């Protein structure tokens, strides 16, 4: 396939947008993912279904992807957007393209670290605006410098790799012996087991593994569509939660009154419009200038600008409020939004003259709560909701169904935006008691248990459909040739090798082997196995 300059530029732009801040905070959960990225690249290159399917295959490798506190196990923009584009333009079959993706992801990680480091600089520019009491300046510093940098560091390499890289890939592939190309395809067929194994390493517990096996068997032997398997998983989850008593009656909450307190004449209040504006700013721009020095600190200050403008009048008060919120902050931005609600309530009290609400009081609430909520939030959004919906989307996409990425984006966005809005408003309404209300409602545990079961069922099905390789060994005994795969393994359990590999990788991860070591082992096994004719793709 030929690629025009225009197409390469569009892909470079898409690669920037995929990691940019412009998608209501759901960008990281949607367009950043290879399932969606591949579809967009396919659209640009004129074959949307092929792009989607390649993106889905790439995403399977990164099913266990979780980024916490500025750590990144491989960048999904480089893996997804650039990987799909290279694969399509160079005319590689999907499994061969997959073997290219891992090094691309690592290159992207290096750029991410660079960006996180340079972004620290812009926070100091924001500090200068804060000293002058300029809310607009702080907002602008959160937005523009880091986004321009991102456009450069993602867009330029993306353009170069996509426009010139495919010819290079083609000529390298032409030099490589056919056996090795075949081996790379083999590796591509095995790599999704790494993603699934990683997901298992934090979602799975032995007692829930029957549900993984259930999903696997439903896919292999009944060939059910993934959506049906997901619904069966949902039924299994509902039954499990009801009959094991995991669904306890919520603990009675201590009698607590909303944080509003007695309405006095002098009390300064934010309006509903301020609240919505602040929430939308946080939702959209929490990671706009994510950096190693203060992580989401600048994002926090930016989100508070409508609140600060409403509550404080003098330049000094505004400057001190901006400074107060420009400190280090980091949490899971959606569940953690309860902290913002609490902070707004505290700022109201402070502005109304409550002497006990000092800078330290506000700071200690923020810094005390951000950690625990990040733990809960990351487990929920990145650890459960995202991989489950992704598994569903990938399953649909593999069948050539455009509903895969579309349904994924819609469901994921609804979940993320819903959580963020709910926790933000709860925090404002109840003050810091809200945190206990959110965590203690007795819902989180059964929800996690049920979601894990649904997730394991869908992921089991995905293991059956995405991990694909087989043995080519044949043993000749006298006049008869026994084919290991078709005559022996398939008669025991179809899909036995992919299942074994997936479980083996999960086991290795629990034995503290690093994912990168495992990926290298998979590369070695695939190349050696194909070279000697033990293994084959399909």
């Amino acid at each position, binding site marked *: 396939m030929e690629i025009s300059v225009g197409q390469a530029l569009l892909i470079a732009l898409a690669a920037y947008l995929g990691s940019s801040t412009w998608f209501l905070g759901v960008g990281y959960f949607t367009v950043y993912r290879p399932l969606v990225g591949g579809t967009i690249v396919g659209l640009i290159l004129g074959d949307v279904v092929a792009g989607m399917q390649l993106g889905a295959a790439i995403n399977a490798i990164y099913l266990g992807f*979780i980024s*916490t*506190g*500025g*750590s990144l*196990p491989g960048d999904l923009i480089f893996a997804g957007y650039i990987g799909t584009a290279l694969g399509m333009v160079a005319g590689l079959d999907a499994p061969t393209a997959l073997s290219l993706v891992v090094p691309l992801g690592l290159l992207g990680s290096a750029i991410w*670290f660079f960006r*996180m480091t340079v972004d*620290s600089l812009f926070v100091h520019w924001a500090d200068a605006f804060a000293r002058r009491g300029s809310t607009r300046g702080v907002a602008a510093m959160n937005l523009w410098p880091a986004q321009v940098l991102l456009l450069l560091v993602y867009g330029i390499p993306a353009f170069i790799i996509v426009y010139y890289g495919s010819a290079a890939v083609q000529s390298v592939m032409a030099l490589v012996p056919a056996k090795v190309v075949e081996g790379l395809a083999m590796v591509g067929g095995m790599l999704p087991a790494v993603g699934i194994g990683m997901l298992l*390493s*934090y979602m799975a517990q032995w007692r829930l593994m029957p549900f993984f096996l259930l999903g696997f068997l439903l896919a292999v032997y009944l060939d059910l569509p993934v959506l049906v398997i997901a619904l069966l998983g949902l039924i299994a989850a509902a039954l499990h939660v009801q009959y094991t008593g995991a669904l306890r009656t919520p603990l009675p909450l201590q009698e607590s009154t909303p944080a509003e307190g007695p309405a006095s004449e002098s009390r300064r209040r934010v309006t509903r419009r301020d609240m919505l504006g602040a929430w939308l700013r946080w939702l959209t721009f929490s990671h706009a200038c994510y950096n*190693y*020095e*203060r*992580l989401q600190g600048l994002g926090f200050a930016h989100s508070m600008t409508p609140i600060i403008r409403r509550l404080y009048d003098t330049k000094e008060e505004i400057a001190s409020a901006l400074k107060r919120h420009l*400190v*280090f902050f*980091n*949490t*899971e931005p959606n569940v953690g939004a309860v902290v913002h609600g609490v902070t707004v309530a505290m700022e109201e009290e402070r502005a109304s003259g409550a002497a006990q609400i000092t800078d330290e009081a506000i700071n200690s609430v923020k*810094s*005390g*709560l*951000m*950690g*625990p*909520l*990040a*733990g*809960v*939030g*990351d*487990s929920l959004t*990145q*650890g459960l909701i995202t991989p489950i919906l992704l598994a569903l989307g990938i399953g649909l996409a593999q069948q050539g169904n455009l509903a895969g990425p579309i349904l994924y984006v819609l469901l994921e966005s609804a979940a993320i935006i819903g959580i963020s809005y709910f926790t933000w408003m709860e925090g404002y309404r109840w003050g*810091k008691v809200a*945190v*206990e209300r959110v*965590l*203690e409602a007795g819902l989180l*545990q059964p929800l*996690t248990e049920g979601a894990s079961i649904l997730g394991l069922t869908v992921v089991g099905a995905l293991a059956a459909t995405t991990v694909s390789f087989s043995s080519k060994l044949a043993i000749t005994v006298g006049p008869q040739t026994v084919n290991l795969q078709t005559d022996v393994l398939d008669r025991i359990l179809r899909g036995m090798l992919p299942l074994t590999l997936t479980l083996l990788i999960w086991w290795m991860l*629990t034995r*503290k082997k*690093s*994912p*990168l070591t495992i990926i290298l082992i998979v590369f070695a096994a695939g190349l050696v196995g194909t070279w000697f004719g033990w293994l084959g793709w399909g």
Partner: protein
Amino acid sequence: MPHITLVRIDDRLIHGQVVVKWVRHLDCKEILIVDDELWHDAFLQNVLRLAAPPDVRVHVTTVQKTGQQLSSSSNDSHGVMLLVKSPQTALALLNNGVPFSELNVGGLAAGPRTMRLYKSVSATSEQIVALFAIRDRGVRVYFQMVPEERRVDLSEILPARQQQREGLLDGRRRI
């Protein structure tokens, strides 16, 4: 005394990296947070307990009571993860007879008077002095946010800055 699987400096204590990565990686069932200030804050203690995964017990204790708390911890194979907010607390633990041979530095927020050491780890001069004091007690001090990352030794971060370290140590003497 139970086996201590990890001693970590992280001023956010229990958060994503700890819950999603370390707890899974170490198959940890018990976290002991050592922080004198937190010990007085019943609300935050409750939040930390609620935020931990359901199968992980969280205890909060003071430096003084850590030894006692550890001896009452269950002696199973899972061991205990120790979390502290600052290098000074880690040093105080050593001084109070809680032995450990490795110290993970995971996160320290930047603030006024801090210098950035590694990724999201920044430290004041007092904190750096404490880190070196810990290292001088034979503890391997390393920076690592999450298990899949490479461990980076303290000496890799501050080797050529020996002089600066001397300066810092002088500072301590003056105090």
